């Protein structure tokens, strides 16, 4: 049964836009340099990065916008996915590293390690790395979610322990003894699946793939949210105890969407790392998670296309302002967050809805409980 549920209606369009836009950019970048429609390599890299961020934003929105769990630690899943991909890319370097060591990544040679730690086994294979990019965030989310939801940790408490989670991981990954390259992280990647990462063709393909992944995430999320499970999710968000008295276990429902969201975030991280070329523990920083939440807030939570738009807008703004106003851009960013929460509680998507009189009268949200989130 398709539920007549408006927040999902934009997802198809968003998927189409993302896919066509991404592929178009990718194709245009392959035109010769002189062509008027040529898209510079720089823009391809940026677009790929934004789309990877958009995947993270969708993941955050799934748990925050639809399940009412404000996560301040989703960057952890994103970064874990990124590390899994980064480990593969590290192994792909092979003997082309600075030291030419066929068995060890450069940073291990650097630290005089003599053998590969066991948890690096298998990462020379792309399918294994991709699997781990899903499994690692998924497993972490599973353990964490199982513990947290079972004991009914909710609201701000949950937000704060998600923050503790990503902070602890950041500290752990900073340790050189962990074997993930410490502060310098993983970098200096050469190629992926045999294709040179510095070739325009590879870049274009990666952009298109990222767009495809985002579109797939959007459609899959739409299918999930459109199912009875999606209705349950909203039910849990609106009145968790009610679902319990009907006989559902909200912890299971939350856990399922939480893990799914972590998987998506992991995918985003994997695509991010290939295109950005570095992964470092800084990606776990609590600030990053909060920023991801802000993309969602700006775009409009509780819709699937809002977060995509928010991620693109905020990051484009960041790129522009760090160049245009290097000394002032933080004011702009800070004010954006303040003004969005004050005047655009439903984000840009809310503006869109307000402009359409038909949709405006749809619901009258009512503040009921402390955890309740006003969502269109």
């Amino acid at each position: 049964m398709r539920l007549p549920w408006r927040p999902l209606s934009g997802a198809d369009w968003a998927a189409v836009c993302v896919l066509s836009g991404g592929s178009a950019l990718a194709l245009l970048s392959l035109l010769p340099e002189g062509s008027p429609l040529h898209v510079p390599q720089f823009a391809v890299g940026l677009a790929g990065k934004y789309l990877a961020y958009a995947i993270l934003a969708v993941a955050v929105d799934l748990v925050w916008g639809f399940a009412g769990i404000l996560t301040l630690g989703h960057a952890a899943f994103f970064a874990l996915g990124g590390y899994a991909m980064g480990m593969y890319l590290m192994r792909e370097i092979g003997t082309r590293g600075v030291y030419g060591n066929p068995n060890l990544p450069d940073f291990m040679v650097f630290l005089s390690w003599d053998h590969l730690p066991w948890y690096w086994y298998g990462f020379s294979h792309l399918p294994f790395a991709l699997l781990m990019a899903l499994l690692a965030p998924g497993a972490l989310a599973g353990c964490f979610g199982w513990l947290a939801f079972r004991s009914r940790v909710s609201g701000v408490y949950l937000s704060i322990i998600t923050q503790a989670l990503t902070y602890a991981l950041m500290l752990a990954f900073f340790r050189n003894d962990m074997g993930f390259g410490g502060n310098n992280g993983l970098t200096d990647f050469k190629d992926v699946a045999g294709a040179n990462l510095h070739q325009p063709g590879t870049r274009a393909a990666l952009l298109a793939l990222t767009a495809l992944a985002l579109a797939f995430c959007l459609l899959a999320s739409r299918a999930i949210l459109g199912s009875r499970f999606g209705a349950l999710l909203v039910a849990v968000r609106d009145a968790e105890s009610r679902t319990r008295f009907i006989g559902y276990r909200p912890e299971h429902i939350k856990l399922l969407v939480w893990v799914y969201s972590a998987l998506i975030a992991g995918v985003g991280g994997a695509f991010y790392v290939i295109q950005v070329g570095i992964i470092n523990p800084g990606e776990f920083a609590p600030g990053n998670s909060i920023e991801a939440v802000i993309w969602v807030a700006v775009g409009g939570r509780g819709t699937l296309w809002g977060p995509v738009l928010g991620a693109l807008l905020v990051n484009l703004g960041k790129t522009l302002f760090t160049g245009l106003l290097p000394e002032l851009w933080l004011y702009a960013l800070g004010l954006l967050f303040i003004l969005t929460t004050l005047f655009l509680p439903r984000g840009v998507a809310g503006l869109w809805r307000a402009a359409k009189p038909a949709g405006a009268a749809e619901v009258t949200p009512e503040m009921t409980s402390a955890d309740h989130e006003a969502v269109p």
Partner: protein
Amino acid sequence: MSNDTPMISRRGFGQLSLAAAAAAAAVTPALAAEKGEPIKIGILHSLSGTMAISETTLKDVMLMLIAEQNKKGGVLGRPLEAVVVDPASNWPLFAEKARELLSVDKVAAVFGCWTSVSRKSVLPVFEELNGILFYPVQYEGQECSRNVFYTGAAPNQQAIPAVDYLLSADGGSATRFVLAGTDYVYPRTTNQILQAYLGTKGIKPADIMVNYTPFGQSDWQGIVSQIKAFGSAGKKTAVVSTVNGDANVPFYKELGNQGIKSTDIPVMAFSVGEEELAGIDTKPLVGQLAAWNYFESIKTPANKAFIKQWHAFTKKPKRTTNDPMEAHYIGFNMWVQAVQKAGTIDHDTVIDTLIGIKQPNLTGGVATMLPNHHITKPVYIGEIQDNGQFNVVWKTPDLVPGKAWSPYVAETRNLIGDWRKPIDCGNYDTVAKRCVGTKHG
């Protein structure tokens, strides 16, 4: 500050945003029309986030140097234009901004980065787009890229002489060492090199304590008391600190409060300069040591003039100068010389021309750009004074040429960097007579 420097453009990246490009064009000075298109210089230093504390100064000094050069008529008859971006202490953003500077702004050279990770992050970009990066901070070595010029100290230009000093009678003939550092690559590598080096000097492993702390460590009580306990073994003990800039203030405050005096356990720091000391009351720290290639207190005419210029430029008569600033001073002037010598800003030509360029440094010596893209530097040991400055108590008799690869790490024992033909390789194995790895060749 931008008022002093007419040549700073408000940044834009035209192809993505016409509005941004228009904004950039609006500020383009009239000078360009007279003397030709300005030459763009990229400045890639964090102006926000955790590293702003160190890097903002470097942005300012670059603006000063560029303004100064423009007063002299620019380079090749063209004015210089600073392109300032803020990579916000975010490493992927460093790579993105580097790409933007090279491919959108098409800058002639980039002066930037502080942390190792930021350099590692931009390195592939510079190599791919064949840019020029001047990196002004002391670092762990083990790198030698054709596109990077390392104007800061390599380990052999800071760490080894500093330990030599501690081992000498003047430095207190230490026989027991604490190697305390922040847990990241620079301290790890430096300490590894030092451990090997101390071994060759007859110091037993039992007499070396290695301790790592996280970034921004603020509670040093336990560690300082551990150091104290380690120092009570009847042997003269010294601390070699590779603690990262920001964490030094609480570290030194704790040292002072627990009464560790420089006469009991001297602390030799590699990351504490005038700028860091500006945040502390240095009276309890008098006599603690730092090893650098430059100190503000060194009295030479060149340095006096530089400091005067700096105070005038920043309009702050007390603003300190420090070692990485001198590195930028040297690097920038070397680049100017190379461009003037080559008569072009073409990257390949400039890279080749830079080798062998000599530039007087601020402390009375002459820095030479070596074939391995490192420079020759004097090494000074300074003692902290109660006015927040350093008093030089020791210096190397000659300039020390920077070594990219450490002879104390097995894999790199035989490596050298030489970007002249015929070797033309950053990691050349002198025994196997071949270039190791592919990219750096």
